[in-house]
């Protein structure tokens, strides 16, 4: 009965669920350097800036009616705008050597400026408020087979990069001065990591919504930080936590008719203190 119900649901929501799980794996790994640097809130600011990109694209679209209809459909333009703004925001907040406190200030400023501007820009737009609300409140089910394929490519690429560059990423996150001294290209690596996170959030926010994108970026890495004894292990454990929250999350959401993204994020949030409890019980 359960299996039959699941099979029926898979026919309807399979691509969306698959996209959601792959996004979770991708962002779960990408979030590790952020959490390791104590910069988790960057994800919220970047996601909010992606929403600002959507708002600006809507405004520009309103003034360029039908001009690009044959080249880009509306969905593509909105996705590209979200990715562009998220990437720029991630680069602005994730690079530079001005110290953690200064970066926190820039991140907070970016979040607040984007959140207010997003609403103000589309307040009088006939469809804008609705579209932005859609982006902010979207809950995974909007993703399709193309989204699943793109998320798969991103997840595999991220896993490969994390495997190949895990030590460098860990050292840069822990001690960027030492990393630079031993010849790691810290600025280039930080910029690449930020651009990768921006790309991921820009894509994920369109496919699965702001809350889900931010939740998958930060919560699995936070849980991994509490469960693991080493930074290097976090790169393995974070995507497992991402799946541990989102796999049952989507199925539970389907069974209870609740929004899957929100259920998955709630489960991921619950995993964080549980992961900490596991760590304290472990013999040293």
């Amino acid at each position, binding site marked *: 009965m359960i299996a039959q119900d699941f099979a029926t649901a898979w026919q309807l929501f399979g691509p969306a669920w698959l996209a959601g799980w792959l996004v979770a794996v991708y962002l779960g790994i990408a979030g590790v350097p952020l959490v390791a640097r104590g910069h988790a809130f960057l994800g919220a600011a970047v996601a909010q800036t992606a929403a600002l990109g959507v708002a600006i694209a809507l405004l520009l679209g309103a003034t360029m009616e039908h001009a690009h209809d044959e080249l880009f459909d509306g969905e593509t333009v909105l996705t590209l705008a979200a990715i562009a703004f998220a990437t720029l925001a991630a680069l602005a907040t994730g690079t530079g050597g001005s110290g953690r406190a200064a970066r926190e200030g820039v991140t907070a400023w970016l979040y607040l400026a984007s959140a207010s501007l997003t609403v103000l820009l589309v307040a009088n737009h006939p469809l804008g408020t609705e579209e932005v609300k859609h982006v902010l409140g979207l809950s995974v089910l909007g993703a399709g087979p193309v989204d699943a394929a793109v998320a798969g490519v991103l997840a595999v690429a991220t896993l490969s990069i994390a495997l190949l560059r895990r030590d460098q990423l860990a050292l840069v996150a822990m*001690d960027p001065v030492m990393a630079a001294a031993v010849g790691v290209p810290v600025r280039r690596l930080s910029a690449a990591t930020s651009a990768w996170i921006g790309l991921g959030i820009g894509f994920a926010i369109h496919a699965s919504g702001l809350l889900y994108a931010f939740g998958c970026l930060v919560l699995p890495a936070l849980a991994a930080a509490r469960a693991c004894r080493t*930074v290097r292990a976090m790169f393995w454990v974070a995507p497992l936590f991402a799946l541990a929250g989102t796999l049952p999350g989507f199925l539970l959401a389907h069974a209870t008719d609740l929004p899957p993204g929100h259920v998955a994020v709630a489960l991921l949030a619950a995993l964080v203190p549980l992961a900490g409890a596991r760590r304290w019980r472990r013999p040293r």
Partner: protein
Amino acid sequence: MSASQPVFALAGACLGHARRTVLDAVDLAIGQGEFWCVVGPNGSGKTTLLHTLVGLLRPLRGGVRHHPTLATRTALGFVPQRCDLNPALPTTVREFVGLGLVGLGLGRVEAASRVPEALARVDLGPQIDTEYWRLSGGQRQRALLARALARRPATLLADEPTSGLDPRAVEDLLAVLHHMHRQQGLTLVLVTHDLGLAARHASHVALVHEGRVHAGTRSEVLRRDRLERLYGAAVADAFAPLLEGSA
């Protein structure tokens, strides 16, 4: 390669960061197997000089000539002034020290053997699987040194490696460095504001003051008249016995 070629050589270099000159007309030649102390008041530019030697800063004018084998990235060991780890970050002493091997291209077995070896040198062997945050301040300082030693450097540059340590721990740490200096010909460059340490241990001293670097052998640089001019008569008097002994 030439053994007589300096490990680092600066001639008339201007050093600083963000286009702000900190040290001007710097002439310095650090030879193989020498034990240098970079001394000077707080904020005088000691760390700027060290970071330039390590390659973290580029000279604003002039250049640094590095020895082709003794001052390469793989031959240098660097101990930063402090390591501002995110306190929420999980890490063990083994991982912390092991990450110092990044960039050497070592195999898994070789890398695994370097960590306990380096920890044993600084008497932290039993703590290898301890969580980093359980170490005391002095032990963390030794872990920083072990991270640099794991690279088996030909040249070690350390930024105030004894800061925050009690006198016993300072002597223990210096004993380790002295041993490596004598037994393995390790070239040492230590930044410190402890004139006594420089007077007791260094073969050469770079005294950094008011944008200039006075560099030479210990007896050439740590002269009573110079210390009196820079630090006042009280400090010069206090160090007089050490200076006489070192002359």
